[in-house]
């Protein structure tokens, strides 16, 4: 893999994992709907 490949790979993982962490953290600090 080239350096550019590692960059695209890393940034994509970071974006998706970051979104997931953001969402689940916000959820677990809110009450359940029922």
């Amino acid at each position, binding site marked *: 893999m*080239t350096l550019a490949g590692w960059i695209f790979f890393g940034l994509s993982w970071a974006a*998706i994992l970051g979104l997931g962490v953001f*969402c689940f953290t*916000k*959820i677990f600090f809110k009450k359940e709907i029922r």
Partner: protein
Amino acid sequence: MRQLRPKRDTWGSRLGIIMAVAGSALGLGNFLRFPVQAAGNGGGAFMIPYFVSLLLLGIPLMWIEWTLGRFGGGFEHGTAPGIFHSIWQKNRFIKYFGVIGIFGPFVIFIYYTFIESWTLAYSYYSLRGILTSLPDQGALQSFLKGFQGLEKNAFFSGLGPAYIFFLITFFINMTVISYGIRGGIEALCKIAMPILLVLGVVLVIRVLTLGTPDPARPDWNLANGLGFLWNPDLSALKSAKVWLAAAGQIFFTLSVGIGVILTYASYLSKGDDVVLSGLTAVSMNEFAEVVLGGCIIIPAAFVFFGPAQIQSIARQGAFDLGFVTMPLVLGKIPLAAFFSFIWFALLFLAGVTSSVSLAQPAVAFMEDEFSIDRKKAVGIFAAAAFILSQPAIFWLGRGVVNELDFWGGTFCLVLFGTVEAILFAWVFGIDKAWEEIHHGADMAVPRVYKFIIKYVTPLFLLVVLGAWFIQEGLPTIFLEGVREADRPFVFGTRIGLVLLFATLALLVRVAWKKRTRQAKR
């Protein structure tokens, strides 16, 4: 005495609906279609149009469907005819357009369940060690064709085993939906989704630790395998085809435009959040697609087949990739049977959480618009779906499934998605829509999305719809690439689809007349 309407089902928890929507979205495409699309459209550079489409198309449409669904559910409408009517009551015809939101899922269901049953069967054949002992691509292709009933060979003399697995899969689906939203779909997804993700992570770890299996071929290694998919070709960004491919991939991966998310969201209460929940469902799907899907099949195939063969592998259809190449690859590693089982179990779980969502709109339609109780509605749906599934099973090689997939799984989606985006932003009105999205919201939608939802998403969709229609729609409608002998089957399928749509439209008409009569009383 007036018949009492049964109380509408509801989700038991926020995580429940998130898992269900993510389950509906997550499917074979995350693991098979995405890697091939990315590899063939600029590699790592594909992620630029991919993320742009996610932000401008995927996430807005997800929010639109969740909001519309919750809104319609407030009027006890769990399907698009009623939901569209509740947005645009002055228009007598919009509810008939909404029929697509029942028709599309139904059409997909009738072939999807058969394909899903293959993954169950292959899980079984993996555990028995049969699959990973097959020596080469030819043997695996024969195995698949024999199993599918496309040819008689040393492995299978008929459709018997495949049909048994289909019956089991069909029964599982009907059992789940007969327990309803909370007791059936939610219960399934809360178990299936975490297991699916764990299985995916196990496979990714297995692939990422492959290293260089053949010391005589040091460049057939994991890093180069990842590179085949992720090394960017920035010149690809100049091609409209690549941007369209990205938009299409986002559309299909999130399962927007089908109508199932509308139905699922209709079981929310007005004060339930849709913003954070919808975004979380998106994040789960994207994790499965980019993090898991982007690290399994292509890199694994590369380390065992090398840079020359990977090109033709990446051009294979999804079925050959998943049912031929992947078992072949897994057959070369220790604990082959175990990992093959995990692969097909993962696909089965992805499939069943999607197929139950495809069944729900038709069931919801009967429950909401005809006050039929759930068990009876499921019985009616099961009978109709079972009968209509038979052509897809027995005439698989005659183009029936391709035709169903085109109309139900592609054409309807893009058209429906475009119309619901325009209805939401322009008929419902963006100010009212903005307010509606934010009822009970646990996070604020970034303000720029008011502009995006009103102008960018609908325009993007119209461009995608137009381009797709010209490039793929017209050739398919005019039977390009269809063998002469298969044309009667394709026409037969089209006639069947028209009859199905007309039946559903008639049922909508009957239901509305009934409502009008009851309202007058």
